């Protein structure tokens, strides 16, 4: 049924594709996280112009397809003379930069909303208590609001990371040779389904399972004080409690 010779022949190509998928995913997740945290803080403040501007940004991005966003950046920017004559032009000509930028902008919009939602649901009493024992605003943010918001956001954030992993498949439309592109090329060359898309499906399935397991471990780690079986044994030192490791 499965022609293992074709699979073996194209295994190096798939390995290369997997590396590219992972590089794209990792860079997007790192930049996405870094930008989303401050944006979420701004977004969760009530009724300021900046907060509304951030909302507009996430609304527009969440309301349009990622493929269109990618095409606007990859094909669209070339329309403008000032882009083509600027120092940024080599960047916008590179499919890697465009895919990274499009995916980052997309994940920033979703992640910002996830984090902002978690920040908004912080119990007011916690913040009042922290303020009343004399913590500064920055300290409240760092040691009270963020650690608990991060914990609440973690399950949804895990979903978003898996979604982004799936979204890297769209990079195949702008000539990046990641897993999806390799599968499509193998299909075009041999006209076989299992040995092309089947292998890609197996790879994506493993990545999904791996990421899900990773986030389950993270949840176990960050939410261990809430798990009933471990709570009595978990002796958290006060210093640790004040300095939770955040991603």
């Amino acid at each position, binding site marked *: 049924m499965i022609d293992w010779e074709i699979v073996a022949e194209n295994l190096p190509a798939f390995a290369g594709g997997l590396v590219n998928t992972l590089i794209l995913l990792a860079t997007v997740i790192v930049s996405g996280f870094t930008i989303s945290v401050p944006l979420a803080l701004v977004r969760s403040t009530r009724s300021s112009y900046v907060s509304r501007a951030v909302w507009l940004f996430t609304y527009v991005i969440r309301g349009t397809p990622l493929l269109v966003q990618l*095409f606007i950046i990859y094909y669209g920017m070339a329309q403008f003379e000032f882009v083509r004559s600027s120092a940024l032009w080599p960047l916008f000509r590179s499919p890697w930069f465009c895919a990274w930028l499009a995916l980052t902008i997309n994940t920033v919009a979703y992640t910002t909303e996830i984090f902002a939602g978690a920040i908004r649901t912080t119990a007011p009493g916690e913040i009042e208590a922290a303020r009343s024992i004399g913590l500064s605003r920055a300290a409240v943010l760092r040691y009270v609001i963020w650690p608990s918001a991060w914990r609440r956001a973690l399950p949804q954030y895990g979903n978003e990371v898996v979604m982004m992993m799936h979204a890297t498949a769209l990079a195949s439309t702008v000539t990046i040779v990641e897993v999806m592109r390799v599968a499509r090329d193998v299909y075009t060359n041999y006209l076989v389904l299992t040995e092309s898309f089947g292998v890609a499906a197996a790879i994506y399935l493993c990545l999904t399972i791996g990421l899900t397991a990773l986030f389950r471990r993270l949840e176990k780690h960050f939410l261990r004080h809430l798990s009933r079986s471990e709570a009595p044994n978990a002796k958290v030192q006060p210093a640790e409690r004040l300095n939770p490791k955040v991603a």
Partner: protein
Amino acid sequence: MFQSYLPMILEGLRVTLSVASVSLAIACVIGLIGASAKVYGGMAARLSATVYTTTVRALPDLLVMLVVFYGGQILLNSISDKYGWGYLDVDPYIAGVSTIGFVFGAYLTETFRGAILSVPAGQIEAGFAYGLSRFQVAFYILLPQMIRHAVPGLTNTWLVMLKATALVSIIGLDDMVHRAGLASAATREPFTFYALIGLIYLAVTTFSVLLFGALEKVSSRGVRSGGAA
């Protein structure tokens, strides 16, 4: 120049909306079947529904779409070879709606499963106690009450699905994205046309949110909200 391409793009919008709504109908049917299999089915039905929802949600939409598109072609070829029909093409529209329906049926299975479980068991038992048939219980008691719980998940699936229809341009369906590509190539103004369809998607999304908000109100009429206390 721009105006002359506008009718063509709007015709693409019609294709996009048609793909999205037919896919939604297919996904709803699959979702209802999958959810009943998960809640009421035997061992085999539960297992196959679980395998379906887990695999589909673990793979990129684009991958599932290409597998259905090319796989359907291979299947069609082998059938037509057998009966000597000659070469048949898979219609990209049918391939598109069946794939998107198949993919989002998995998400709706989970939505509907939760909705079914949130209807109190006593309601179903009361229906049977009155002598209603299984069909009547499902149609007059279960469905009206589960819709209220399903609307938020349904809204979300519709919004994600609407954007996922952009992918059908990759298998050659003449939707809005595909037409924007053609217009860009002809005018050398890709930004103009991709930004335009971006705005159209945004408008449709906004309209959908308002519409589903109204549906949520209608489906929750008669339910007391806890907010007043």
